[in-house]
């Protein structure tokens, strides 16, 4: 290799991995919710994230207020968009073969991306708010990434509390365990689907808002996040919500560690090779969970 890898470098990489991983976990939790409750793979998940990022960009551009406060706008806005998409289209393919939902959500995604390009142009834009890093010993911690991490962890914990403790959350989990039994117990499954899609979109929007402060954004940024979320839910086990959390962290770590030894391009491929291996060797995810 010829490159000397010091402990500080490894520490740096592990921390970067965890910081990125928390964000992946939160976004993927949304995808896992939709998949868990409806067995639908939402290809438009990253697109909704992109719309969240643009919400933050315009919030900061036009109002000049702290971009982190834009979560208060982007999350409800995308919640509503999610509910609208579910109500108008996605509910019709819930029981169809996977081809229908894959294509339908792709159609939605490409239309939304194109409208965004038309409205806001394809220019790369960025929110210049927090730059620089905290220096802790030999480690440099990017301020914006650290704050995103805190937000992502907070929102993910909140989502888990919600799923675990509230009546609606329990109904969502019941629906993803067995739709029929949930229905028999008096759960309005159609409504649960709406809430699940809405919540998932709000989580994606939060991801977008946080990403917008870290890196430059453009209308086609979403696809990468869609793919990464697929990876996370496969790693964690589809429909296994705590698994999505660990899967996200794992993806962050794998990406960062492999970028230490390999070029960035190849470290991307490592993640996909991992995906195929996990699908073959442990189709229920690394952390158990139920098979389909």
């Amino acid at each position: 290799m010829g490159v000397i890898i010091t402990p500080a470098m490894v520490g740096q990489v592990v921390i970067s991995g965890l910081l990125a991983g928390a964000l992946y976990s939160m976004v993927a939790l949304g995808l896992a919710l939709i998949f868990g409750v409806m067995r639908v793979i939402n290809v438009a998940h990253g697109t909704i994230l992109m719309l969240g990022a643009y919400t933050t960009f315009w919030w900061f551009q036009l109002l000049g207020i702290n971009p982190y406060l834009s979560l208060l706008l982007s999350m409800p806005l995308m919640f509503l968009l999610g509910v609208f998409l579910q109500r108008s289209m996605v509910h019709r393919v819930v029981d169809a073969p996977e081809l229908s939902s894959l294509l339908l959500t792709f159609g939605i995604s490409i239309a939304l991306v194109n409208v965004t390009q038309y409205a806001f142009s394809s220019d790369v834009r960025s929110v210049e708010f927090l730059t620089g890093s905290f220096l802790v010993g030999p480690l440099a911690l990017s301020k914006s990434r650290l704050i995103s991490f805190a937000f992502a962890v907070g929102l993910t914990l909140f989502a888990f509390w919600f799923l675990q403790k509230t009546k609606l959350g329990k109904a969502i989990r019941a629906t993803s365990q067995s739709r029929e039994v949930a229905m028999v117990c008096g759960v309005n499954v159609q409504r649960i689907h709406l809430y699940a899609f809405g919540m998932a979109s709000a989580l994606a929007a939060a991801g977008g808002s946080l990403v917008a402060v870290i890196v430059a954004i453009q209308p086609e940024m979403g696809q990468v996040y869609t793919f990464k979320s697929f990876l996370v839910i496969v790693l964690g086990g589809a429909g296994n919500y705590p698994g999505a959390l660990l899967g996200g962290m794992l993806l962050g770590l794998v990406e960062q560690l492999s970028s230490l030894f390999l070029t960035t391009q190849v470290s991307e491929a490592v993640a996909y090779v991992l995906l195929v291996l996990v699908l073959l060797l442990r189709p229920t995810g690394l952390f158990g969970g139920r098979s389909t």
Partner: protein
Amino acid sequence: MKRAFIAALGVLLVALALYPITATGYGIRFMLQLFMWVALAQSWNLISGLTGYVSFGHVAFFGTGAYATGILVATHGWHWMPASLMGGVAGAILALIIGYPCLRLKGPYFAISMLGLNEVMRVLVSYFEGLTGGGSGLSLPALHASVPIYYATGLAAVAVTATAFLIITSRFGLRLMTIREDEVAAEAMGIDTARYKLYAFLLSAFVPGVVGGLQARDQGYIEPMAVFPLLTTITMIVMALFGGKGTVWGPALGAVTLFVFQELVWARFLYLHQVLFGAIIIVVVLLMPRGILGILQQRYQLPRTI
């Protein structure tokens, strides 16, 4: 009826064979692209239309074929005809490597793994710069061979359609469709599902490999982003679905209709054509999931093997 259909088909083939005599350069190019889409939609249909396993990364075989051909032509000085056949072989080899393990995956997991395969291929092609030229692409020596490539692509489209006909009217096709309807039942009936799925997958990967090779030769330049786009996969799926997946003529019908529509109408909407494409996808999925031929089959007494 049947005889009239065969006669019409013969006339069409003769007309297409004679077309280059009078055609303009644009006309040749248009038809060449049309043949390409017919072949791609048909090839996707062989695996996904018949067995129900959704190949959501089918363009991986197209890109692999394009690169195999490109490397043989540019670096080893091969003629494009054997080189594009080797492109098909490369596609089939990739299908063998990935299909053997991945065809065991069920439902959405197979689709996601195919999507992953496409990403891996794109990254690998970018990475091995010495062989592929990496991100800056691979240029093939200049050659004006639009007319021979027109015939070759047309032949590929005809061959894959004929293959689809032969498969769908055979016991092999029945086995594949049994897998689609109920794989457990198919296994219980003694069908070696793993083997037949793999055969269908190999056939369906060979064609995009060849077509990718022909495209590489025709374009004269390939680069990773251009030959592995998800959008190409989606387009071939929508074409097959629009015409009627799992039928012989559906994918061809869908490819012709959507491609002509695209050339005539979308070109006028420079900015919003992808919104239109998205809308078409949504309409096809929600309102006509069985496609044109599927709807006609339901309404009228049409042969199952249409």
